[in-house]
Protein backbone atom coordinates (compact mmCIF):
# COMPACT_ATOMS: atom_id res chain seq x y z
CA UNK A 1 0.00 0.00 0.00
CA UNK A 2 1.53 3.26 -1.01
CA UNK A 3 2.19 6.02 1.43
CA UNK A 4 -0.63 8.24 0.31
CA UNK A 5 -3.19 5.48 0.67
CA UNK A 6 -1.85 4.62 4.11
CA UNK A 7 -2.22 8.18 5.23
CA UNK A 8 -5.73 8.39 3.85
CA UNK A 9 -6.86 5.26 5.67
CA UNK A 10 -5.26 6.54 8.84
CA UNK A 11 -7.04 9.88 8.64
CA UNK A 12 -10.38 8.22 8.05
CA UNK A 13 -9.80 5.92 11.00
CA UNK A 14 -8.64 8.80 13.18
CA UNK A 15 -11.75 10.80 12.41
CA UNK A 16 -13.92 7.83 13.34
CA UNK A 17 -11.95 7.28 16.55
CA UNK A 18 -12.26 10.91 17.61
CA UNK A 19 -15.99 10.87 16.97
CA UNK A 20 -16.55 7.69 18.94
CA UNK A 21 -14.27 8.89 21.73
CA UNK A 22 -16.34 12.03 22.19
CA UNK A 23 -19.59 10.07 22.05
CA UNK A 24 -18.34 7.68 24.72
CA UNK A 25 -16.60 10.17 27.00
CA UNK A 26 -19.46 12.64 27.35
CA UNK A 27 -21.86 10.59 29.48
CA UNK A 28 -19.12 9.11 31.67
CA UNK A 29 -19.51 9.96 35.37
CA UNK A 30 -17.15 12.69 36.46
CA UNK A 31 -14.28 12.05 38.85
CA UNK A 32 -16.34 13.03 41.85
CA UNK A 33 -19.09 10.50 41.20
CA UNK A 34 -16.73 7.74 40.10
CA UNK A 35 -16.36 5.52 43.10
CA UNK A 36 -14.57 2.23 42.91
CA UNK A 37 -15.82 0.08 45.78
CA UNK A 38 -12.96 -2.35 45.36
CA UNK A 39 -10.39 0.42 45.76
CA UNK A 40 -12.05 1.75 48.89
CA UNK A 41 -12.19 -1.71 50.39
CA UNK A 42 -8.52 -2.28 49.72
CA UNK A 43 -7.57 1.05 51.22
CA UNK A 44 -9.24 0.06 54.48
CA UNK A 45 -8.34 -3.61 54.47
CA UNK A 46 -4.72 -3.59 53.38
CA UNK A 47 -3.60 -2.29 56.73
CA UNK A 48 -6.00 -4.33 58.82
CA UNK A 49 -5.49 -7.66 57.10
CA UNK A 50 -1.84 -7.52 56.08
CA UNK A 51 -0.24 -4.87 58.29
CA UNK A 52 1.24 -3.06 55.31
CA UNK A 53 1.11 0.67 54.66
CA UNK A 54 1.55 0.70 50.89
CA UNK A 55 -1.73 -0.28 49.31
CA UNK A 56 -0.33 -0.41 45.78
CA UNK A 57 2.28 -3.03 46.63
CA UNK A 58 -0.32 -4.96 48.59
CA UNK A 59 -2.50 -5.07 45.50
CA UNK A 60 0.43 -6.02 43.30
CA UNK A 61 1.92 -8.79 45.36
CA UNK A 62 -0.91 -10.04 47.48
CA UNK A 63 -4.43 -9.28 46.41
CA UNK A 64 -3.66 -9.52 42.69
CA UNK A 65 -0.46 -11.50 42.91
CA UNK A 66 -1.52 -13.87 40.21
CA UNK A 67 -1.63 -11.07 37.64
CA UNK A 68 1.84 -9.99 38.72
CA UNK A 69 3.14 -13.49 38.01
CA UNK A 70 1.83 -13.12 34.49
CA UNK A 71 3.47 -9.74 34.05
CA UNK A 72 6.76 -10.99 35.42
CA UNK A 73 6.75 -13.80 32.93
CA UNK A 74 6.00 -11.41 30.08
CA UNK A 75 9.20 -9.67 31.10
CA UNK A 76 11.06 -12.96 31.32
CA UNK A 77 9.95 -14.06 27.87
CA UNK A 78 10.74 -10.70 26.30
CA UNK A 79 14.26 -10.84 27.67
CA UNK A 80 14.52 -14.42 26.44
CA UNK A 81 13.40 -13.37 22.98
CA UNK A 82 15.83 -10.46 22.84
CA UNK A 83 18.70 -12.66 23.94
CA UNK A 84 17.80 -15.21 21.33
CA UNK A 85 17.55 -12.65 18.56
CA UNK A 86 20.76 -10.90 19.42
CA UNK A 87 22.74 -14.05 19.91
CA UNK A 88 22.06 -15.94 16.73
CA UNK A 89 25.22 -16.71 14.90
CA UNK A 90 25.31 -15.71 11.32
CA UNK A 91 24.02 -17.82 8.48
CA UNK A 92 26.47 -20.08 6.73
CA UNK A 93 29.04 -18.29 4.73
CA UNK A 94 28.89 -15.01 6.58
CA UNK A 95 31.52 -13.85 8.97
CA UNK A 96 30.73 -13.25 12.56
CA UNK A 97 30.28 -9.54 13.02
CA UNK A 98 32.74 -7.97 15.41
CA UNK A 99 31.99 -7.43 19.03
CA UNK A 100 29.93 -4.30 19.42
CA UNK A 101 32.01 -3.20 22.37
CA UNK A 102 35.37 -4.30 21.06
CA UNK A 103 36.57 -1.14 19.40
CA UNK A 104 37.91 1.33 21.84
CA UNK A 105 35.49 4.01 22.63
CA UNK A 106 35.70 7.06 20.46
CA UNK A 107 35.42 9.45 23.35
CA UNK A 108 38.20 9.22 25.88
CA UNK A 109 36.65 9.53 29.31
CA UNK A 110 38.56 11.51 31.88
CA UNK A 111 39.78 10.20 35.20
CA UNK A 112 37.49 12.55 37.10
CA UNK A 113 34.44 11.21 35.33
CA UNK A 114 35.50 7.62 35.92
CA UNK A 115 36.03 8.28 39.60
CA UNK A 116 32.64 9.89 39.94
CA UNK A 117 30.90 7.09 38.08
CA UNK A 118 32.53 4.43 40.21
CA UNK A 119 31.78 6.33 43.38
CA UNK A 120 28.09 6.43 42.53
CA UNK A 121 27.78 2.68 42.08
CA UNK A 122 27.70 1.87 45.78
CA UNK A 123 25.00 4.42 46.71
CA UNK A 124 22.93 3.14 43.82
CA UNK A 125 23.18 -0.45 44.96
CA UNK A 126 22.22 0.52 48.51
CA UNK A 127 19.34 2.63 47.27
CA UNK A 128 18.16 -0.15 44.98
CA UNK A 129 18.16 -2.69 47.80
CA UNK A 130 16.36 -0.19 50.02
CA UNK A 131 13.61 0.32 47.46
CA UNK A 132 13.21 -3.40 46.89
CA UNK A 133 12.96 -4.37 50.54
CA UNK A 134 10.75 -1.46 51.62
CA UNK A 135 8.17 -2.06 48.94
CA UNK A 136 5.40 -2.79 51.37
CA UNK A 137 6.02 0.27 53.53
CA UNK A 138 6.72 3.15 51.17
CA UNK A 139 6.48 3.56 47.41
CA UNK A 140 8.73 0.96 45.89
CA UNK A 141 8.81 -2.73 45.33
CA UNK A 142 10.56 -5.33 43.27
CA UNK A 143 10.02 -3.77 39.86
CA UNK A 144 11.30 -0.29 40.61
CA UNK A 145 14.23 -1.42 42.76
CA UNK A 146 15.22 -4.03 40.22
CA UNK A 147 15.64 -1.48 37.47
CA UNK A 148 17.63 0.79 39.81
CA UNK A 149 20.02 -2.06 40.55
CA UNK A 150 20.35 -2.77 36.85
CA UNK A 151 21.42 0.83 36.24
CA UNK A 152 24.06 0.36 38.91
CA UNK A 153 25.45 -2.53 36.90
CA UNK A 154 25.30 -0.38 33.80
CA UNK A 155 27.37 2.30 35.51
CA UNK A 156 30.08 -0.29 35.86
CA UNK A 157 30.14 -0.79 32.11
CA UNK A 158 30.11 2.93 31.38
CA UNK A 159 32.89 3.62 33.84
CA UNK A 160 35.23 0.73 33.32
CA UNK A 161 34.56 -0.91 30.01
CA UNK A 162 33.27 -4.24 28.91
CA UNK A 163 36.08 -6.48 30.18
CA UNK A 164 35.62 -5.43 33.78
CA UNK A 165 31.84 -5.51 33.48
CA UNK A 166 32.00 -9.04 32.18
CA UNK A 167 34.12 -10.20 35.07
CA UNK A 168 32.13 -8.55 37.84
CA UNK A 169 28.72 -9.66 36.54
CA UNK A 170 29.40 -12.91 34.71
CA UNK A 171 26.82 -13.95 32.21
CA UNK A 172 26.15 -17.34 33.73
CA UNK A 173 25.53 -15.92 37.19
CA UNK A 174 23.08 -13.38 35.85
CA UNK A 175 21.14 -16.04 33.96
CA UNK A 176 21.00 -18.12 37.12
CA UNK A 177 19.81 -15.12 39.14
CA UNK A 178 17.02 -14.46 36.68
CA UNK A 179 15.85 -18.04 36.82
CA UNK A 180 15.95 -18.00 40.62
CA UNK A 181 13.94 -14.80 40.70
CA UNK A 182 11.27 -15.99 38.33
CA UNK A 183 10.98 -19.41 39.87
CA UNK A 184 11.11 -18.03 43.38
CA UNK A 185 7.83 -16.24 42.96
CA UNK A 186 6.19 -19.48 41.85
CA UNK A 187 7.74 -21.40 44.71
CA UNK A 188 6.48 -18.91 47.26
CA UNK A 189 3.05 -19.34 45.80
CA UNK A 190 3.33 -23.10 45.94
CA UNK A 191 4.37 -22.91 49.58
CA UNK A 192 0.74 -22.31 50.42
CA UNK A 193 -0.16 -25.72 48.98
CA UNK A 194 1.58 -27.47 51.84
CA UNK A 195 -0.91 -25.97 54.22
CA UNK A 196 -3.85 -26.89 52.11
CA UNK A 197 -4.51 -23.32 51.03
CA UNK A 198 -4.90 -22.01 47.50
CA UNK A 199 -1.95 -20.81 45.45
CA UNK A 200 -0.30 -17.59 46.68
CA UNK A 201 -2.08 -17.40 50.02
CA UNK A 202 -0.18 -15.33 52.53
CA UNK A 203 0.70 -17.96 55.10
CA UNK A 204 3.86 -16.56 56.69
CA UNK A 205 3.11 -14.75 59.96
CA UNK A 206 2.39 -11.10 59.24
CA UNK A 207 4.74 -8.99 61.27
CA UNK A 208 4.10 -5.68 62.94
CA UNK A 209 3.15 -2.81 60.73
CA UNK A 210 5.83 -0.25 59.81
CA UNK A 211 8.47 -2.96 60.07
CA UNK A 212 10.39 -4.66 57.30
CA UNK A 213 8.87 -8.01 58.14
CA UNK A 214 5.28 -6.86 57.76
CA UNK A 215 3.17 -8.31 55.03
CA UNK A 216 4.06 -11.97 55.30
CA UNK A 217 5.12 -13.19 51.88
CA UNK A 218 5.22 -9.68 50.40
CA UNK A 219 8.86 -8.81 51.12
CA UNK A 220 9.94 -12.24 49.87
CA UNK A 221 8.03 -11.82 46.65
CA UNK A 222 9.42 -8.31 46.33
CA UNK A 223 12.99 -9.53 46.65
CA UNK A 224 12.43 -12.34 44.20
CA UNK A 225 10.88 -10.00 41.67
CA UNK A 226 13.69 -7.48 42.16
CA UNK A 227 16.24 -10.20 41.45
CA UNK A 228 14.45 -11.19 38.31
CA UNK A 229 14.02 -7.67 36.96
CA UNK A 230 17.65 -6.75 37.68
CA UNK A 231 18.96 -9.86 36.00
CA UNK A 232 16.62 -9.39 33.06
CA UNK A 233 17.82 -5.86 32.36
CA UNK A 234 21.48 -6.83 32.75
CA UNK A 235 20.92 -9.64 30.27
CA UNK A 236 19.40 -7.16 27.85
CA UNK A 237 22.52 -5.03 28.24
CA UNK A 238 24.67 -8.05 27.57
CA UNK A 239 22.69 -8.83 24.47
CA UNK A 240 23.10 -5.40 23.01
CA UNK A 241 26.76 -5.11 23.93
CA UNK A 242 28.13 -8.34 22.72
CA UNK A 243 26.59 -11.03 20.69
CA UNK A 244 29.06 -13.41 19.23
CA UNK A 245 29.27 -15.85 22.06
CA UNK A 246 29.95 -19.31 20.78
CA UNK A 247 27.14 -21.76 21.54
CA UNK A 248 29.14 -23.48 24.24
CA UNK A 249 30.06 -20.46 26.33
CA UNK A 250 32.18 -17.38 26.43
CA UNK A 251 34.47 -16.56 23.55
Amino acid sequence: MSRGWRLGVFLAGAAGLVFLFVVVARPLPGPLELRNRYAEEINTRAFRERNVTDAVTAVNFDYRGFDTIGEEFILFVSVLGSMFLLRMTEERGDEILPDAAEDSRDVRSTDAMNLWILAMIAPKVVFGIYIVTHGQLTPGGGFQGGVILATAALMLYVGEGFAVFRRVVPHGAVEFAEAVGAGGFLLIGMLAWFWGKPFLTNIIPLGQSHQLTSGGTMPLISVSTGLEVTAGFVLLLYGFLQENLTPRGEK
Partner: protein
Amino acid sequence: MSAQIVTYAGFIVAGWLFLTGLYGIITSRHLVHLCLSMTVVQASTYVLLAVIGYRPGLPAPIFVNMPAGSPAVDPVIQALMLTDIVVEATVIALLLAITVRIHRRTSTADPNEVDIMRG
Protein backbone atom coordinates in the same frame (compact mmCIF):
# COMPACT_ATOMS: atom_id res chain seq x y z
CA MET B 1 -15.93 21.79 37.97
CA SER B 2 -12.17 21.96 38.01
CA ALA B 3 -12.04 18.20 38.39
CA GLN B 4 -14.10 17.91 35.23
CA ILE B 5 -11.63 20.11 33.37
CA VAL B 6 -8.70 17.97 34.42
CA THR B 7 -10.49 14.78 33.43
CA TYR B 8 -11.40 16.09 30.02
CA ALA B 9 -7.91 17.46 29.52
CA GLY B 10 -6.54 14.05 30.37
CA PHE B 11 -8.83 12.38 27.85
CA ILE B 12 -7.81 14.84 25.16
CA VAL B 13 -4.10 14.31 25.88
CA ALA B 14 -4.53 10.53 25.82
CA GLY B 15 -6.39 10.63 22.52
CA TRP B 16 -3.90 13.02 20.98
CA LEU B 17 -0.90 10.94 22.06
CA PHE B 18 -2.54 7.80 20.68
CA LEU B 19 -3.22 9.35 17.29
CA THR B 20 0.15 11.09 17.07
CA GLY B 21 1.99 7.91 17.96
CA LEU B 22 0.00 5.98 15.39
CA TYR B 23 0.79 8.64 12.80
CA GLY B 24 4.46 8.29 13.68
CA ILE B 25 4.31 4.53 13.23
CA ILE B 26 2.64 4.84 9.85
CA THR B 27 4.85 7.52 8.35
CA SER B 28 8.12 6.53 9.94
CA ARG B 29 11.21 6.21 7.84
CA HIS B 30 13.42 4.42 10.29
CA LEU B 31 12.61 1.35 12.30
CA VAL B 32 14.02 2.74 15.55
CA HIS B 33 11.82 5.81 15.20
CA LEU B 34 8.92 3.43 14.67
CA CYS B 35 9.62 1.68 17.97
CA LEU B 36 9.75 5.01 19.76
CA SER B 37 6.43 6.08 18.32
CA MET B 38 5.12 2.83 19.77
CA THR B 39 6.33 4.12 23.14
CA VAL B 40 4.18 7.21 22.66
CA VAL B 41 1.13 5.06 21.95
CA GLN B 42 1.82 3.12 25.15
CA ALA B 43 2.10 6.37 27.07
CA SER B 44 -1.39 7.37 26.02
CA THR B 45 -2.78 4.43 28.01
CA TYR B 46 -0.78 5.52 31.03
CA VAL B 47 -2.24 9.01 30.85
CA LEU B 48 -5.75 7.64 30.54
CA LEU B 49 -5.33 5.33 33.52
CA ALA B 50 -3.75 8.03 35.66
CA VAL B 51 -6.64 10.37 35.02
CA ILE B 52 -9.23 7.70 35.68
CA GLY B 53 -7.64 6.62 38.93
CA TYR B 54 -7.39 10.11 40.33
CA ARG B 55 -9.78 11.36 42.98
CA PRO B 56 -9.78 15.13 43.29
CA GLY B 57 -8.11 16.46 46.40
CA LEU B 58 -7.11 13.10 47.88
CA PRO B 59 -3.55 12.00 48.63
CA ALA B 60 -1.63 8.93 47.49
CA PRO B 61 -2.62 5.50 48.91
CA ILE B 62 0.36 5.25 51.25
CA PHE B 63 -0.76 5.06 54.87
CA VAL B 64 2.47 5.61 56.76
CA ASN B 65 1.40 8.87 58.33
CA MET B 66 -2.33 8.75 57.73
CA PRO B 67 -4.59 6.27 59.44
CA ALA B 68 -5.57 3.42 57.20
CA GLY B 69 -8.94 3.76 55.60
CA SER B 70 -8.77 7.50 55.13
CA PRO B 71 -9.85 8.42 51.63
CA ALA B 72 -7.10 8.12 49.05
CA VAL B 73 -6.52 7.73 45.38
CA ASP B 74 -7.33 4.43 43.71
CA PRO B 75 -4.52 1.89 44.30
CA VAL B 76 -5.77 -0.84 42.00
CA ILE B 77 -5.27 1.25 38.87
CA GLN B 78 -1.81 2.24 40.03
CA ALA B 79 -0.95 -1.41 40.48
CA LEU B 80 -2.06 -1.95 36.88
CA MET B 81 0.19 0.81 35.59
CA LEU B 82 3.24 -0.04 37.61
CA THR B 83 4.10 -3.44 36.23
CA ASP B 84 2.88 -2.33 32.85
CA ILE B 85 5.61 0.30 32.53
CA VAL B 86 8.49 -2.07 33.17
CA VAL B 87 7.06 -4.78 31.00
CA GLU B 88 6.40 -2.54 28.03
CA ALA B 89 9.93 -1.19 28.15
CA THR B 90 11.15 -4.75 27.80
CA VAL B 91 8.84 -5.31 24.86
CA ILE B 92 10.30 -2.22 23.17
CA ALA B 93 13.74 -3.72 23.78
CA LEU B 94 12.55 -6.85 22.00
CA LEU B 95 11.38 -4.72 19.08
CA LEU B 96 14.76 -3.02 18.96
CA ALA B 97 16.44 -6.40 18.85
CA ILE B 98 14.25 -7.34 15.88
CA THR B 99 15.26 -4.04 14.27
CA VAL B 100 18.93 -4.90 14.65
CA ARG B 101 18.35 -8.28 13.01
CA ILE B 102 16.40 -6.78 10.12
CA HIS B 103 19.13 -4.24 9.53
CA ARG B 104 21.66 -7.02 9.39
CA ARG B 105 19.73 -9.06 6.86
CA THR B 106 18.76 -6.27 4.52
CA SER B 107 21.31 -3.55 5.40
CA THR B 108 18.54 -1.01 5.56
CA ALA B 109 16.40 0.29 8.37
CA ASP B 110 13.67 1.90 6.32
CA PRO B 111 10.35 0.15 6.84
CA ASN B 112 9.31 0.92 3.30
CA GLU B 113 12.31 -0.88 1.86
CA VAL B 114 12.41 -3.98 3.97
CA ASP B 115 11.26 -6.81 1.77
CA ILE B 116 12.09 -9.96 3.70
CA MET B 117 8.57 -11.26 3.54
CA ARG B 118 8.21 -10.91 -0.17
CA GLY B 119 8.00 -14.42 -1.53
